[in-house]
Structure formats: C-alpha cells, structure tokens
C-alpha cells in the first residue's frame, strides 16, 4: 500500500488560557515550510534543537518564541512536527493558529495528534490512553500511576483472575465435550467455590477503581462545624491565602468556598461551609443545607468544634448524621482552651497542632485513598466498565449455577466475564482451553 497523503494539522498543545507560556504544534509534511514562512529571513531551526525565533505575520512581529523542529520519523507523531513555544496570551495563540491555517494547515480534531502517533506505530492504544491520563495528571503520584499502567501492572493483577477463570471454563467445557471419558471434571460445588473466589478478586479490583479515581481525579474534603468554630480560618491556613472572609460575626460564610491543595500526593479540594445552626435567615438556611449535603458527598469531613465551648448537643447530632463518612474531629482555638484528652487541638493563631493535622491528613489520604505506589489500579472508565461487567457476568454465572442450569448456560456467562476481562488481559482463546484440558486429563477413545 502506498503511503497515504496526509494533511498538515495544527493544534494548541497546552490548555487555552492566560499562562506564562503556551505551545502550538504543527504536524504533517508542510510543518517545516510553514515554520519557515512564519520566521522570514531567519534560518530554519535544526531538528531537535531549541531555537529562538521571531514569528512575523503579515510583516508584523507577533511574538518572540522558542521553536523546536522534529523531522519524521523522530517525533511524537512520527511525522514532521514543529512545536512553537510562545507567550501564553489567548489572543497571540489565536492569531498564530489562524496564520498557520492560512498557510495551508487545518485545525486538528480532538486527539488527532495522538491518533497519528498510534497510526504511525509510535505508541499503542493502551499507551495512548495512559498518555491522556498523564496529560491530565496534576500530582507526581498521579503521573506515576499512569506510568505504572503503561507497564502493565494492572494487566498482571487481572491475569491472575483470568487464570482462575480459564481453569473453571476448561473443566466445564471438558464436561460437555468429553462427557464419555469417564471423568468427573469438576463438581458443581467446586465450580461455585472457584467462581465465588473469582468474584471476590474482581471486587477487589473494582475497589482499586475508587482509589484509582481518587488518584487521578482527586478527593473532596469538607470543613464542617457550628458557626464561628474557625472553619474559614482553617481553610485560609491550609490554602495559605486569605481566601475566605473571616470575621467574628457568626454566619459570615454563607455559600461554599472551594480550594485545591495537595495532601498525601493527591489533589484535595477543600470546601469551607456555612456554620451549622438553626437560622431564620433564608439565604443562610440554604447555605447550611448545602454544607450538610456537601459533607454527605465528600470523601473526608473535617468537623470543627470550638475548644472553648466544647462538644454541644448540636455537634453530637450533626456527627451522628456522618457516621458513614470519613470524619476527623478537630478542636479549634486550642490556644483558648485545651481539647478533651486524646482529641486533636489546633490553633491557627499560635500555629499549634497544624502540623499534626496536616500529617494526620497526609497519612489518612495515603492509607485510604491513594494507591500504594507499587500496586496497580483501574484508572479509567473503560477499564472500570470492563471489570464491572466481568463482575456482573460472574454473578450471573453463579445464579445460573444456583438455578441448576447446565454447563453450557453457565459458560455463556463465564465467557462474557472472560471477554470483559480480556480488555485488560487479552482474551481466553479456544486453543488455550483445549490445551488446558488435554494437559490435565487423558482424553480420547
């Protein structure tokens, strides 16, 4: 097959918005020529060497940039590729994109550069998916997880489940295809035990999704407590800015304020909320409802109690609503009164207990939400769907078994389970099944 004529495309490689720098990529055979047109009377940059260039459009200087030119096939996409790093002003970017399009390129569709990389064999599809995760990674642990996936840790975990399934499938198949051989290949009881074991394993894998999602998408934490317990002060301290307005007047915070910081290697979005009290103010009442709802949806709740006032009846009632949640009770303003024995006290004013709180949070996140760095986890929706439908099919096969249906019906669901898992591990082939049977049993008249 002759090489397909490919078009030259252009796309911003960084999110559009105000930033220090932004990168625009031009991919395709005309990339170098376009670069040359954009940098009149300046030499064409050597491949893979960063060069300082003035971009001139219609005789007018657009920006002073750094350009890197990659020659096919030694580029991300495998094509001729130019990367222009300019200043991160949306107006500049738009003008550059328009100029490049005027010079014969077309705007790239979403993901088109990566598709070209796949088509040219620079990366495979699973890697492409992980690349998407890497791009979205906001913390080092997230990036590490994406890299681990690239190396197939998840596949290995799923492979163990696949092996167990292969054993059961092979024996059930043998019971159908070689029923005259005088073997009891597998009892219904043993089938049930093996499948229940597999379901448990699959559920553990599903559990990693929760952690995987926390790692890629981050966590939410809510600061909750009665009015004037010091919630906004704590938020400002954690964020390190005067994000929330702090006054001695109870009910100052009405709507929810959110800021994201890194805890335990994960991005944690912390929400400051309206103080909990019975209020006749309609607006404040709405804010209080929102606070309670946010706490019920949050991964973590920091429940603040004024150390001077101690735990009130209202605090007890509020905490009772949160028994299912992951709650850390913190006594604020501990410079004014000591917290009860064994409880964590902080004072933002004296900078007391803040480190303890931070390391407690850090530990909690690492322990319960982050993925141990050496383990694997499901990180994307496609993987989650695969494992979830595997679980569903396994449960259906157990139901068929319980209903007294014979091997072939149980197998219908087991193959479904195996095929779902196959998205992570590679499918179970018919030859593997036969090989397993013939290696374990003496078959053949």
């Amino acid at each position, binding site marked *: 097959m002759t090489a397909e004529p490919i078009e030259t495309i252009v796309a911003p490689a960084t999110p559009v918005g105000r930033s220090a720098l932004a990168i625009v990529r031009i991919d395709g055979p005309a990339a170098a020529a376009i670069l040359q047109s954009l940098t009149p009377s300046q030499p064409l940059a050597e491949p893979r060497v960063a060069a300082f260039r003035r971009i001139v459009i219609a005789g007018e200087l657009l920006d002073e940039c750094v350009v890197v030119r990659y020659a096919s096939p030694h580029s991300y996409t495998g094509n001729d590729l130019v990367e222009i790093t300019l200043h991160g002003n949306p107006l500049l970017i738009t003008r550059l994109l328009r100029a490049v399009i005027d010079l014969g390129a077309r705007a790239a569709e979403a993901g088109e550069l990566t598709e070209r990389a796949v*088509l040219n064999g620079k990366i495979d599809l*699973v890697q492409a998916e992980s690349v998407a995760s890497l791009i979205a990674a906001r913390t080092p642990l997230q990036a590490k997880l994406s890299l681990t996936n690239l190396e197939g840790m998840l596949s290995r975990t799923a492979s163990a489940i696949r092996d167990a399934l292969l054993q059961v499938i092979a024996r059930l198949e043998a019971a159908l295809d070689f029923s005259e051989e005088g073997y009891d290949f597998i009892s219904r009881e043993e089938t049930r035990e093996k499948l229940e074991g597999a379901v448990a394993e699959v559920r553990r894998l599903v559990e990693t999704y929760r952690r995987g999602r926390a790692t890629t998408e981050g966590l939410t934490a809510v600061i909750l407590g009665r009015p004037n317990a010091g919630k906004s002060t704590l938020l400002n301290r954690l964020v390190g800015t005067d994000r929330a307005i702090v006054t001695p007047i109870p009910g100052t915070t009405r709507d929810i304020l959110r800021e994201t910081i890194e805890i335990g290697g994960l991005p944690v979005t912390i929400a400051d909320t309206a103080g909990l009290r019975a209020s006749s103010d309609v607006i404040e009442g709405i804010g209080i409802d929102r606070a309670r709802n946010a706490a019920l949806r949050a991964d973590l709740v920091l429940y603040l109690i004024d150390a001077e006032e101690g735990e009130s009846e209202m605090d007890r009632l509020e905490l009772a609503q949160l028994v299912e949640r992951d709650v850390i009770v913190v006594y604020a303003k501990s410079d004014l009164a000591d917290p009860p024995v064994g409880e964590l006290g902080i004072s933002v004013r004296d900078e007391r207990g803040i480190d303890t709180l931070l390391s407690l949070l850090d530990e909690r996140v690492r322990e319960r939400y982050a993925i141990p760095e050496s383990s694997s986890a499901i990180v994307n929706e496609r993987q989650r769907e695969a494992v979830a439908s595997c679980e569903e099919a396994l449960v259906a096969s157990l139901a068929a078994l319980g209903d007294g249906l014979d*091997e072939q019906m149980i*197998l219908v669901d087991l193959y479904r389970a195996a095929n779902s898992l196959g998205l992570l591990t590679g499918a179970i082939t*018919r030859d593997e099944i036969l090989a397993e049977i013939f290696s374990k049993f003496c078959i053949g*008249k």
Partner: protein
Amino acid sequence: MNRVFDVIVVGGGHAGAEAARICARGGLRVALVTMIRDAIGRMSCNPAIGGLAKGNLVKEIDALGGLMGEATDRSGIQFKILNRSKGPAVQGPRAQCDRDLYSLAVRAILDAEPDVTIVEGAVSSLIVEGHAVRGTVLVDGTTLTGRATIVTTGTFLRSLMHSGEVKTRGGRFGEPSAETLSNSLQALGLRLGRLKTGTPPRVVRDSVDFRRMEEAPGDDRPRPFSILSDRIALPQVLCHLTYTGDVAHALIRTNLHRAPMYSGQIRATGPRYCPSIEDKVVRFAEKERHQVFVEPEGLDHPWLYLNGISTSLPPDVQDGVVRSLPGMEHAVIGRYGYAVEYDFVNPEQLEPTLQVRGGEGLFLAGQINGTSGYEEAAAQGLLAGINALQHVREEEPLILRRDQAYAGVMIDDLVTLGTEEPYRMFTSRAEHRLLLGCDSVYERLSPIADRLGLLDDGRKRRTAARLNRMRSATELAEATDLKPDRETREWLAEAGIDLTTQATVGRLMQRHAVDVERLLAVCDVQLPNLAAAFRDLTEDELEGVMSRLRYSGYIERQQREAAKLAEDEDVRIPADMAYELPGLSREMVEKLNRVRPVSLGQASRISGVTPAAVSILRLHVRQRKRRVEGSGASNATSRVPSSLEVAGAGR
C-alpha cells in the same frame, strides 16, 4: 485420452463423496477419481458416525443437502444421543454403523446421480495453466479436465504405515499411497506438513467373552440423522465396555522402545485428543485404567473394533495388551493396529471457500487440510463442492459464519489459525454454541441450500413441513393463555410455581420444573388446538420447540453478540492489502500475510493479532475505502429468496 467434465473430484472418501454428489445435484458433470471403486465411502477407522459436535456436523450436512446422514440411517446399528442430560445445543447424536453397509449406502447414493462418473485410477499430477488448475493426469496417462478440481486424498499423500518396526507405503491397510501428487501441490507453491494418525486392533468376535464386560446399549428409540428418514430399519445391537489395567500398562512400558512414536521412527504430530494407548500410559502414568469400547464392525462382520487403544506397537505386544483385557483372555486379533503418516497442506493457504489461494479452480477438503474425522471431512467436502459449483457457475461463494454452523467454525478456524495437529470439531470451539444446536439446523441452513438449488423436492417438502410444525406450536404456546383449574394449579404449586393469575402456555413450558406431558394433557381438554399442534411434533421437534422456549433468553443474548461480531465480518479487507503498516509488529505482519484474511473479523481471530492491531487495520481499511469511493464500483447481488424462509420466522 482426454475426458472433459465440469468438476474433477480426487478421492472417494467422505469428503470426495459429498463433493461429487453436491456438484451433480447442482447440475455439473462430475468425475470422481478413486484408486479402488469398492473403497468409496469406506470407514478407515471406527465404525461410527457422529458424536458431540460431530453429530451436529452430520445434521448440518443433511440440512445442506449432503449424504452422510442418509448413509448413516441406512447402515446404523446403534443410535445414541450423547449429553442427553445436558442442554439441547450440546447434545450430539451418534450411530454405530455396519461398516460395509455404510460404504454400500454411499455408493448407492452416488450411483443414483447420473452425472457422477466414477473413474478408477491413480492421480499422478495436476494440470496447471498459469495460476489455474484445470484437471488431473492419471498414472495411465488419461487426462481429466474441468473448470474445478477438488482434491480429497485423506491420508494417502506420500503415506507411510507403521506397525512396530515395520514400515509399509500406503494410506490404509492394503491400499497404495499417492506418491507424486504432493509434488504438484508443492509446484503450486503450497507448503506441506506431515501428520500422523492411528487405528486400534480389530479382534475376532467369536474369540471374545462378552459376559466379562459391561454392556453399552444405545437409545431405546433410535433417532435418524436425516430429515429424509422416518425410522431406522436395521436391527440394533449392543456395544461393550472393558478396561486396560496394570498388566497392559507394564507391557506397554517395557516395550516402549519398539513403538514408532517413541523410537523416533515417526516424527509427525498426532492428535492430542486421540492419543495412542502408549501415549496414554506414558503421559497419564497415574491413571490406573483406560476405557476400551468394544464396537461391532457390522451386523454380520466377524470383527470387533477396540475403541480406545489405537497403537502402532508391534503385533506381539498388541496380542499381550489385548489379552490382558477382561473378556479378551483368548482374543484373536483379526487386524493389528497401525499408525499412518501422511502429507497435509496447512490450511492457512486456503481461502474460506476452501479454494487454494493462488490456485484458481483448485479446492481441497478433508484430511489433506489437516483435519481428522469422517464428519469433519464430509462437511468440508460438501462446502468445497458447493463452492466449486459456484465457481463453475460464476456465482457468489458460500462462506458460513461461525454463528451459523459448526462447519463455519471449522473452516474459519482452519483457514485463519492453521493447524499443527489433526483438527477435530469440539463444541467448545464455537463461541455461539447455543445457536448451533441440532434442533435448529434446518432453519439455519436449509434455506441457504435451497437458494443455491441444492435441495430436491422431497427434501424441501419435508423441511418446510418440519419448520411449519415447529413454528405453529411455538407461536401457539407463546400466544395462548392457560386458565388453570384447581387441580392444575395444585400440581404446578408442587413444582414450585405459584399460578394465581393466568400465564401463556409458553411461559409455563419455560419452567424446567414443569412436566410437559402433564401440561399437554391439561391442554388436550382446555386448548385442543394448541395440544394438537404439539401432538403433531416428532419427539425431536418437540425437544427443539422446548429448548427454544426454555433458553430464549440465552439464545437471544448470543444472537445479539453474534450480530455485533458479524459487523466486522462485513468489513472486507482488499485482496491486495499490504500489511507492512506502522504499529503492527513483524510477527503480526508475517501472520497476516500468511493468512491474508478476507475480513476484519477474520483478521481479529488470527492468533497474536491484538485488538489494537485490529483498530489500526480498521483505520487503514477505512482510509483506503474513502479513497476508492466514488469510483462507483458497486456489486449489489440480487438474492433469490428461498421458499423455506417465511416472513417473521423465528431466528
């Protein structure tokens, strides 16, 4: 001398017979070349047809207008449905046959076709014109020319028989080998491989004491294979079961060095699922005994076939092993077991039509393609015959999908995956097994055969009648409410069904706990039309209707899955596709070039071709298609409907 036909069939075994017959049915003049006229339809190994998955193949052959089912019904002396206790889709009919009567039945069926000419002789080479094969040259110099040539040489290509240390040229006891035809195949660029198979000793019936063996009876009511048969006419007989033990195993171990498979005398690969007794003893040393089925070779045949101890050990060891079996203490061996080695063509080199890629007009079927088994051979012979017919008529080939027939699964496996050992059909090779039950075979395949003009009026009439009976019973059951009286409600309650409101008869029949006979007895009184429709069904048809009602959920799910997969079958890969694409590993490129898949679906089944690779192929096929679109090459073929297809007919 040159003789002109439309099609030349080389070989008169199970593949050759089907191929010749179906081409004649399609109106072609056929030459069937065989070394020995009397060997047509001969059962080289066990005297039985069918079994698990294999029985389904026989039914498929019958539904497509083939002869194997008919010949079996005319010669069967013990019929049994295997897996009776399991779901309908994995039940497989099997029949012990009278070996001689089977062969005679095949001959009689071929003799009834005036367009089949049997030519006795040995083929020495193929007539090749450029890339096309135009017939054969016989050893005596006669040339047979035709537009298509179907080679079904079984185990006869450069075949060598082994019995202990003794080697004899030949493909079957007392029959010579075809020594030169392999050269013609190689000259066409085909790669040949070598396989091995074996057969057990036959003992003289009168020297055996059956009282020391277990009886192995068939079904009380033998059920015919063919839609043309109402009943089995021959008397039915018993088989027996005995076992090997310590003595036999010790004897085999002591003499292992004299077994050709172990002495290095045979290097070819034998089938894993049909190991010789020496293999069983070595590989499964912990097994204390191995089953031996003692099968009559015929109603009046003097020999018994010892199924389970195929061997190429020397005769003196075979004597010892046989006499160690309970009941065989004084047995006399009538013919010793032997192994046979033969050339085969790795089937990756074939198109899904069984035509050789790069050998226009040349079709291969049966053991030459690396399969084993009469049924596998016959199904290939039939499909090769149909495709040769279509080739001669210049019409669209017939490629059965994997969700349509076991024959489709088998041929797709062969041409996509190739094979390293003799290939046998198993139900587990089919991913949509529930759709491939014997009960639905006429519905699935007969309309196809009818469209191709392969069914005679008798077959058509019987098929249509069967489908109508099953359809009306099913529809009535699904549409009719049963208002149970108190008594009925009570016994249904005993079966665990709480029936306070009314339900359709179909819904009640879905429940495994419901006794259908009893339910029909209630219907006799309350719903006489429905009861009559059910009473009209044969036992076999009733089972078909019941299985459809009972497993409809599973069946529909498999149909959906199959339909989804079928989409990729429709994405054709151009014949001149170059696979050296970025993103595909060298191994994958090599495999794709070897198999040259016709569709994306087939490509996805090649071992080692990953889903990612299929995505890459898809992108390239799509890109290429975009480029050629607008050239206006549309080849819409008009499809003649079959009278067996009725609007809204179930599956």
